[in-house]
């Protein structure tokens, strides 16, 4: 006999006879072999898809995210770098200030070099030091070389300036309309700016200017680069009237080698959706400061660089790391399902070949020889699975994100990431193959009934796994996700918890089976008892675990997706704060422009950093109309609380008694003087007051109208507003909410005799054409040595009468301000504070703390705390009513408006695009942020990974259920034949088999669904994190997705039930005498 192996064995595994037998055996058991192949393929596909996501997918996602971040200066996008080079006009070394001829090209070249290999646009706004404007009065002006002027301004008259014909000749300039109005200049006007002046005459170098054009600055962020922010005139910039900018043609200052006070550069790289070079770009730009200082020398002050792309890119990588971790967690769950199914199918296959194995053992085959055969077969199936999974993994990878975000060249993909893909596919196919080979290990035969709970439960591994899962769960509760790299706890903990809970819940299946069996035995018929008897016999542990696990995964996945999606919306709402935000104050027409573009409800918002107490780092303040809280604020509060209740008590109680007036020119009459006669021998102080009207319109926009000095000599003095250099009040209805009196003492004679005496001044301020309901006004004073004691004030018609005391000697040394307020004066501002901040400061409701707005101190009174302040999630922040804030600041003497942004509720579709086209500043919409969180390239893989996992759960559950049903049918074949021989009908025999299968399937699926619900309740809120991996704010609220969950569970249940039908029909059909004879064989 040829080809005999050792110990009289049949031919070795490699012989042609064995291979032929193996092929024939596989063909005869094609169903089970195909099932095993399907399981291997699912696992390999999952591993391969994950490998692509973590390599090529990450690169593509980062590039897509970087492409989305690519914006412009006026959109406030993070890829824009702002570099400000300040030149010292005087320095210890005596070096001259830098000149534009050297500095501007240096800055431009340095930034261009730093941005390589990206193409970049570099914009320079070069500003000279303050120069003296010709004329009798001492006035300042400055030159500006702005290469993006024409994109940020509209020409009113004349032309844009051209370079001067000769160095030293007339320099064409363009000036803002406000500058022209203040100077009384028109096109053609000639002016001179000089570095110095002596006896009223300019000292060379002198710049001879001619006005070529007059322009209106656009409402754009670019004007933040201008010294006067595009205002055109400031009556008291550095204590001198200042006009400008006088804008020259690009390159003119370089041509003139003019001295430079500031070079404000903006670098706009074209990232072209390529994230690979971003780290180098960030490093290069940060190094520009040293390069410029080294090249420019001692004349350069520290270079200021603001380039948020580095932090933004780090955030992107962190976000991607979080997504990767969660995708890997899903992969682990899929692999657990695959391994379970592989083990199940392999055991069925082993059982089917039990006779053959027994025969081989009897002929002398060793365990290792049988295992080699099993391993060989598993390897062949794994190779086929590998080949099948290549296109499937590529297709799944392509489906994990919108085509625009992740589509790429497949050839390039194969070249760069082919090896990783191959390794992952091999590993993914190898895992279930190893499991299958282990399943082929001989199991000690057990005399008597098999316990349905199975070997896992008997060994107690599930209990140990539950302990590990409990530890992992509690770790996850207190865990902070690692930034950047994949967080291992986030990967492993969910999978461990899912497997552990499924294993524990599977212990309940035999309890249900025994209960069903006991109930069935009491009946009369034969179907239920037969089913119950076979159910109680056991052997369904593995398929029960698989179905429990699959139903758990399906339920958890469907619920997680619903919770995740809802939470992204909640997080976006908290991050944005409103439906639409225009992040710039703009001018008096901004509110109308925003309202016209959005057709929504528009409100001004204060939003800036302040100093709170002695806290070293700033605190954000968000101020808006508290009465609009519910309609305006977005973001969920715990227990469904409303923002109106959170902001209750913040709005001022008293309405105030402002004067109302129309827009346009105003005439203000100031009459004031000492209330009491001056004592004999004392000098009558000469005190002047310059009134400033603080006006607000219906939209909440505030402005001021500054008047000129008038003497408080008892005679009325009329002031016509606007004074030269200011713009008139725009048309409309305005409320005069405050009147500030800037007091100065002009007494030239000796006031010593007054000593510490306080004099009382009565003043009356009338606004022609104004009216009011009348009533008391408040007064406040801001004076150092001036020592002002505010008195009473009252409004009637268009007049406000007030009185105040002041220290005569003190005012002679220092100016003072008396502010007449249309409301009760108080520097206390009720605030709502974040809980974290209150805890850090040890504050409780009712406590007070100093708040410094810019340089103006007020007192914050804590009313209550909230988990977060909208638009300042995770920041130390305060929420205030804007009116209360304004009143507090006005009471403290701050007249400037407190509008930093405009918030909109219920904007119409297309509003954002319209606002961006109007260049009003950065526009953020809740819809866009929500879409980015849900569908952005850095998040897209996660929901798709869960969908694929759910599909795998359904498919593997059905596959495992079918394999188990086939095995069960074979086990019951002889019993079915026997009971049919004694008269059980074919219908009852089929019914008993189906009932048994249905009992296991439905019990396991129901228990698995409940387990999945518990897992969702425990895990979903922990796994729904912020883009940076921090706990979501607001905390994720579990969203039970009833319909999707029912669909998934239904698919597993129906699929599992139907999977048992063919085997049941087959075994009943084959319950002939031949089966009877075979079953009776000894």
């Amino acid at each position: 006999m040829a080809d005999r192996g050792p110990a009289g064995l049949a031919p070795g595994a490699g012989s042609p006879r064995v291979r032929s037998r193996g092929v024939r055996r596989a063909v005869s058991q094609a169903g089970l072999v195909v099932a095993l192949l399907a399981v291997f393929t699912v696992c390999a596909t999952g591993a391969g898809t994950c490998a692509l996501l973590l390599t090529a997918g990450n690169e593509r996602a980062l590039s897509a995210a970087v492409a989305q971040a690519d914006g412009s200066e006026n959109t406030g996008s993070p890829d824009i770098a702002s570099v400000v080079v300040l030149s010292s006009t005087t320095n210890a070394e005596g070096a001259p200030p830098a000149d534009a001829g050297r500095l501007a090209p240096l800055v431009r070249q340095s930034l261009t070099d730093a941005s390589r290999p990206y193409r970049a646009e570099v914009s320079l706004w070069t500003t000279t030091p303050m120069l003296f404007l010709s004329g009798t009065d001492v006035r300042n002006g400055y030159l500006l070389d702005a290469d993006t002027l024409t994109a940020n301004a509209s020409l009113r008259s004349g032309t844009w300036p051209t370079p001067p014909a000769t160095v030293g000749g007339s320099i064409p300039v363009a000036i803002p309309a406000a500058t022209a109005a203040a100077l009384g200049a028109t096109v053609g006007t000639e002016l001179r700016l000089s570095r110095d002046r002596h006896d009223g005459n300019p000292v060379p170098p002198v710049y001879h200017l001619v006005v070529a054009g007059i322009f209106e600055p656009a409402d754009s962020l670019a004007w933040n680069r201008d010294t006067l922010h595009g205002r055109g005139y400031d009556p008291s910039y550095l204590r001198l009237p200042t006009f400008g900018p006088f804008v020259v043609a690009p390159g003119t200052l370089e041509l003139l080698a003019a001295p430079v006070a500031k070079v404000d550069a903006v670098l706009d790289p074209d990232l072209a959706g390529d994230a690979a070079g971003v780290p180098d770009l960030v490093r290069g730009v940060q190094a520009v400061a040293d390069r410029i200082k080294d090249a420019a020398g001692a004349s350069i002050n520290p270079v200021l660089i603001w380039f948020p792309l580095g932090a933004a890119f780090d955030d992107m990588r962190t976000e991607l790391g979080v997504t990767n971790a969660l995708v890997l967690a899903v992969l682990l769950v899929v692999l657990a399902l695959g391994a379970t199914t592989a083990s199940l199918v392999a055991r069925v296959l082993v059982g089917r070949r039990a006779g053959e194995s027994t025969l081989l053992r009897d002929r002398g085959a060793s365990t290792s020889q049988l295992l080699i055969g099993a391993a060989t077969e598993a390897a062949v199936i794994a190779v086929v699975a590998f080949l099948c999974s290549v296109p499937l993994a590529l297709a799944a990878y392509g489906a994990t994100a919108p085509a625009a975000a992740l589509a790429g060249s497949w050839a390039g993909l194969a070249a760069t990431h082919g090896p990783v893909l191959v390794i992952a596919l091999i590993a993914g196919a190898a895992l279930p193959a190893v499991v299958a080979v282990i399943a082929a290990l001989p199991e000690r035969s057990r005399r008597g009934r098999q316990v349905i709970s199975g070997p896992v439960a008997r060994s107690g591994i599930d209990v140990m796994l539950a302990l590990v899962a409990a530890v992992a769960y509690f770790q996850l509760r207190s865990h902070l996700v690692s930034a950047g790299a994949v967080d291992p706890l986030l990967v492993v903990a969910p999978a461990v918890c899912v497997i552990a809970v499924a294993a524990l819940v599977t212990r309940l299946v035999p309890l249900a089976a025994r209960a069903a069996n006991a109930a069935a035995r009491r009946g009369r018929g034969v179907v239920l008892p037969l089913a119950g008897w076979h159910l109680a016999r056991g052997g369904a542990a593995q398929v029960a675990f698989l179905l429990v696990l699959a139903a758990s995964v399906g339920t958890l996945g469907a619920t997680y997706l619903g919770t995740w999606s809802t939470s992204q919306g909640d997080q976006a709402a908290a991050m944005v704060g409103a439906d639409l935000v225009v992040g710039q104050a703009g001018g008096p027409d901004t509110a109308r422009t925003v309202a016209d573009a959005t057709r929504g409800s528009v409100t001004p918002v204060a939003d800036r950093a302040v100093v709170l107490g002695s806290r070293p780092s700033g605190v954000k303040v968000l101020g808006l109309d508290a009465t609009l809280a519910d309609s305006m604020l977005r973001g969920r509060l715990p227990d469904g609380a409303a923002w109106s209740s959170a902001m209750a008590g913040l709005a001022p109680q008293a309405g105030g008694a402002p004067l109302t007036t129309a827009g346009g020119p105003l005439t203000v009459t100031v009459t004031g003087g000492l209330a009491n006669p001056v004592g004999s021998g004392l000098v009558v102080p000469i005190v002047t007051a310059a009134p400033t009207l603080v006006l607000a319109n219906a939209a909440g926009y505030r402005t001021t109208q500054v008047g000129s000095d008038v003497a408080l000599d008892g005679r009325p003095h009329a002031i016509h507003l606007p004074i030269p250099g200011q713009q008139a009040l725009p048309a409309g209805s305005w409320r005069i909410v405050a009147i500030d009196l800037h007091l100065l003492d002009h007494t030239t004679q000796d006031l010593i005799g007054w000593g510490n005496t306080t004099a009382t001044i009565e003043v009356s301020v009338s606004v022609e054409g104004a009216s009011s309901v009348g009533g008391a006004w408040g007064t406040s004073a801001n004076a150092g040595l001036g020592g002002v004691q505010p008195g009473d004030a009252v409004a009637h018609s268009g007049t406000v009468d007030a009185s105040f005391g002041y220290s005569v000697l003190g005012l002679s040394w220092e100016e003072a301000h008396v502010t007449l307020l249309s409301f009760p004066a108080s520097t206390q501002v009720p605030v709502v504070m974040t809980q974290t901040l209150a805890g850090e400061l040890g504050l409780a409701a009712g406590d007070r703390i100093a708040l410094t707005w810019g340089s103006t101190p007020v007192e914050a009174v804590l009313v209550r705390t909230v988990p977060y302040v909208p638009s300042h999630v995770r920041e130390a922040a305060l929420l205030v009513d804007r009116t209360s804030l304004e009143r507090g600041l006005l009471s403290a003497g701050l007249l400037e408006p407190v509008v930093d942004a405009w918030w909109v509720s219920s904007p119409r579709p297309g509003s954002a695009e319209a606002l961006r086209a109007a260049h009003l500043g950065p526009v953020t919409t809740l819809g866009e942020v929500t879409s980015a969180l849900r569908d952005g390239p850095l998040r897209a893989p996660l929901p798709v990974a869960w969908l694929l996992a759910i599909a795998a759960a359904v498919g593997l559950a059905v596959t495992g259920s079918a394999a188990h049903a086939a095995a069960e049918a074979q086990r019951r074949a002889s019993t079915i034949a026997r009971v049919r021989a004694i008269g059980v009908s074919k219908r009852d025999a089929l019914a008993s088999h189906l009932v048994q299968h249905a009992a296991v399937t439905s019990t396991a699926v129901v228990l698995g669904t409940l387990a999945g619900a518990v897992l969702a309740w425990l895990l979903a809120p922990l796994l729904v994190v912020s883009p940076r991996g921090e706990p979501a704010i607001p905390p994720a609220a579990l969203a039970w997705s009833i319909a999707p969950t029912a669909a998934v569970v239904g698919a597993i249940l129906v699929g599992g039930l139907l999977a048992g039908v063919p085997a049941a029909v087959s075994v009943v059909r084959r319950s002939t005498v031949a089966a009877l004879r075979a079953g009776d064989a000894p």
Partner: protein
Amino acid sequence: MTIPRFYQLIVDLRSVSRTYGSGHSAVAALRDVSLQVPEGELVALAGRSGSGKTTLLNIIGGLDRPDHGEVIVDGTDLAQLDEAGLEQVRRETVAFIFQGFGLVPELTAMENVGLPLRLLRTPPEARERRAALLLDLVGLSEHGEHRPDEMSGGQMQRVAIARALAGSPRLLIADEPTGQLDTETGLAVMALIRGVVEAEGMTAIVSTHDPVMIALADRVLRIEDGVLVDG
């Protein structure tokens, strides 16, 4: 003429043939077999292995259908019955005892014996009383809660006998009932069958090559190569 009940035929086979397979591999298990078994008779069916004994018994018991011929059992032509009809015959008229005992391994002795009674929709109390009675009849009243893997071969066969009697069948068919038993146990089982047949007044056909059983039978039929040589 009315045949006295005592002499009423329980089994009447006329020219029954059964062939397995087709073409060159066709095997004629039965060839034109005719036999009659009157009520109350214990018939031994003898023949070597492969002679057609089991096929003949299966056809008589409704487990198989002949290719040709008539099979009349207790006045019913089995060939005219559909599957449901045959099932009813197996429930109400015919009972089998198999060489391999044919017990349901997951059930206790009591449950195995009660199985035919469930098919007859017997109330649970009556079912348990009858099963206990039958187990007592076969001497296994103390083994009612034992499962087949907890009993000896002889005990299992006695349970099978008790189960066969549960439905009070008219015809008892036993295929090599002592084939897996030792001589002494087989003798006891055969004696039990003989005693039950006499006590219950039922008819029995027992296939066997055991000379003791043959000696206990009222009549012996021999079959060789599918043909009855003794009718």
